[in-house]
């Protein structure tokens, strides 16, 4: 790990036992705490982080995973009914998103790709706002500054560079804060991307920049095994987490369907970044159970047996088993979770119907921050053109 400094003892332990150690090409170890059987295992580094999660927090994890899955079903239905132009389902990836999202602090800034609905939920983004993009009434929808949750970026991996630049800004702010004895909490950035986007040059460049300047950024790669129809093996011949070695910072593969391990690893990584020790790459090993989008048909390129095998590793099932076995949640809890999910679905459905179609004048108004003569000229033409129709209508009446 070069000059990268880890917490005392961590580097040795990771090197000896954990996922960051494997040489490129070798099978990588995967950090897992909660197995598909619902039994809690241990890890020499990350069990200590997992111990910070109290039972109430575990119940929140479960409730959030269940709610976002229910939301995902509702959004898919809305697309099928013609209410959304497209939907990008997340089912299967709930633990990777809810676990990592909950590890972030309010002062951290999140750069999602376009499937991070679970992280959006954790960051308190109004999920109806999130649907604006997919209904075709906005290219964004929410105010990224309110929850430090950036707009979805559809050009793959472009946001990983924005994340590193933002982290470089945090570094400069923190130097300024240190000089002025400010008490602002230290912050970091999470850059989400997928196994497909990992092939984009911007991911490489973002990791080079992040390493060079030791920027406080956590690269969170959800390896969901499929980039639309192309399997991960076409993107990489080594475990994606191993790539971090080439840049000189830690890379960890974590069971992306294990919300406890995801939370522990992400919390460690964010602390590492916030404390000025540089970037971390997390590869959350998970699976896109559904289609890439509602326009996709996975039966064309993969076996249903593969999907069935991954359903056995379901992130919600294993946490439910654990909560029940340990007596941490009763039937009433699970019933309440289901009711909350249905309530969310109803809210989203009714709000989606009510989403206002914007006026194209809103588009004119936001091309530039400052006055621009061509915009003014074209808007003036459009107003005159539109007014012509109105006077025609008046004449007809």
């Amino acid at each position, binding site marked *: 790990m070069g000059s990268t400094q880890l917490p005392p003892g961590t580097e040795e332990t990771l090197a000896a036992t954990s996922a960051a150690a494997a040489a490129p090409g070798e099978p990588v170890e995967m950090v897992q705490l909660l197995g598909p059987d619902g039994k809690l295992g241990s890890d020499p580094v990350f069990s200590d982080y997992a111990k910070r999660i109290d039972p109430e927090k575990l119940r929140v994890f479960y409730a959030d995973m269940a709610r976002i899955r229910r939301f995902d079903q509702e959004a898919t239905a809305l697309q099928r009914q013609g209410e959304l132009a497209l939907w990008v389902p997340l089912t299967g990836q709930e633990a990777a998103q809810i676990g990592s999202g909950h590890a972030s602090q309010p002062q951290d800034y999140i750069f999602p790709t376009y499937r991070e609905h679970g992280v959006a939920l954790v960051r308190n983004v109004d999920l109806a706002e999130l649907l604006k993009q997919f209904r075709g009434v906005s290219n964004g929808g929410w105010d990224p500054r309110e929850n430090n949750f950036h707009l979805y970026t559809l050009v793959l991996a*472009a946001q990983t560079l924005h994340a590193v*630049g933002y982290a470089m800004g945090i570094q*400069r702010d923190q130097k300024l804060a240190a000089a002025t004895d400010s008490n602002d909490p230290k912050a970091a950035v999470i850059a989400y991307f997928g196994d497909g986007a990992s092939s984009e040059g911007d991911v490489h460049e973002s990791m080079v920049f992040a390493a060079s300047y030791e920027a406080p950024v956590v690269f969170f790669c959800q390896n969901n095994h499929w980039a639309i129809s192309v399997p991960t093996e076409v993107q990489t011949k080594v475990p994606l987490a191993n790539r971090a070695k080439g840049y000189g910072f830690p890379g960890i593969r974590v069971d992306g369907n294990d919300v406890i391990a995801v939370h522990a690893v992400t919390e460690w990584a964010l602390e590492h970044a916030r404390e000025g020790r540089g970037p971390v790459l997390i590869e959350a090993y998970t699976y896109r159970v559904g289609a890439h989008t509602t326009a996709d048909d996975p039966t064309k390129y993969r076996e249903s047996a593969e999907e069935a095998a991954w359903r056995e590793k379901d992130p919600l099932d294993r946490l439910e088993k654990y909560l029940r076995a340990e007596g941490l949640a009763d039937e009433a809890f699970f019933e309440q979770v289901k009711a909350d999910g249905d309530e969310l679905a109803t809210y989203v459905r009714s709000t989606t119907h009510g989403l206002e179609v914007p006026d194209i004048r809103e588009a004119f108004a936001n091309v530039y921050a*400052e006055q621009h*003569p061509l915009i003014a000229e074209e808007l003036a033409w459009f107003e005159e053109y539109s007014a012509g129709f109105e006077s025609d209508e008046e004449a007809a009446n």
Partner: protein
Amino acid sequence: MATMTIAKAINEGLRASLNSNPKSLLMGEDIGHLGGVYRVTDGLIKEFGDERVVDTPLAESGIVGTAIGLALRGYSPVCEIQFDGFVFPAFNQITTQLAKIHSRSLGKLSVPVVIRIPYGGGIGSIEHHSESPEALFAHTAGLRIISPSNAHDAYWMIQKAIECQDPVIFFEPKRRYWLKGEVDVQNPGLSEDPFKAHVVREGTDATIVAYGPLVPVALAAANAATEDGRSIEVIDLRSISPLDFDTVEASVKKTGRLIVAHEAPTFGGIGGEIAARISERAFLHLEAPVIRVGGFHMPYPVAKVEEDYLPDIDKILEALDRSLAY
């Protein structure tokens, strides 16, 4: 008043912005200790340190992409792309992200990034070092594109670009870097607004519009035309997007004839846009079709034949003759 080259004027303009705006910073390849391959950032790292004059890894998409992130955090980054032909690795970040984030966020986010690009030919260089890609960016809404032709404008326009809340691409006429001129560092005068065209020579018989490296060529052609008794007006466009059609229109309504000259290929270029707009705005004032003088539809040719490619005094005079013959 001080006499300085265009390169030095940009250097002084950057220094003034770094002094006045603590959130401004420079980033690019070799801009620190080397001072840039054209020395435009010479000495700035000593004065402002490596946090504000950042030698970046050799990756153009990385430079622009991280600049966007810094801008989202409240900084005003000024990126240097080393040569015109090397901007394309950053084309995606510039056109799909930088240009669109303000619009995408419905105005909630601004990304005041400046991208400095030395551009144009005439320096006898190898492939990718002599191009004029401004039209590719002008076609993208959300960007502003300006290009100074003299030292005073260079000094003030770079500062105005950094102050602007929109992304600005600042094309530097690299073969004019050593052109000296008077700079009034106290008073911008007409340079206050970087998005307005300037009438740099008044005339009555025809108008030549040029920008960046061709402004001195257009002026020389106008002077040569006086030998034939022609009175030629010359407009320095200064801004390519937005484009100050009002100034061009007013001139054409006076002269009735228009020549547009740029180094970039004429096909799909800025000249065509000007011709179309002026034909709409001043059709009945035109005594002749608008004539374009520009590069051919070919990759920028090898240095030993670039003289045949570049617009020069004779090509502009030939266009004037054709226009005046109508």
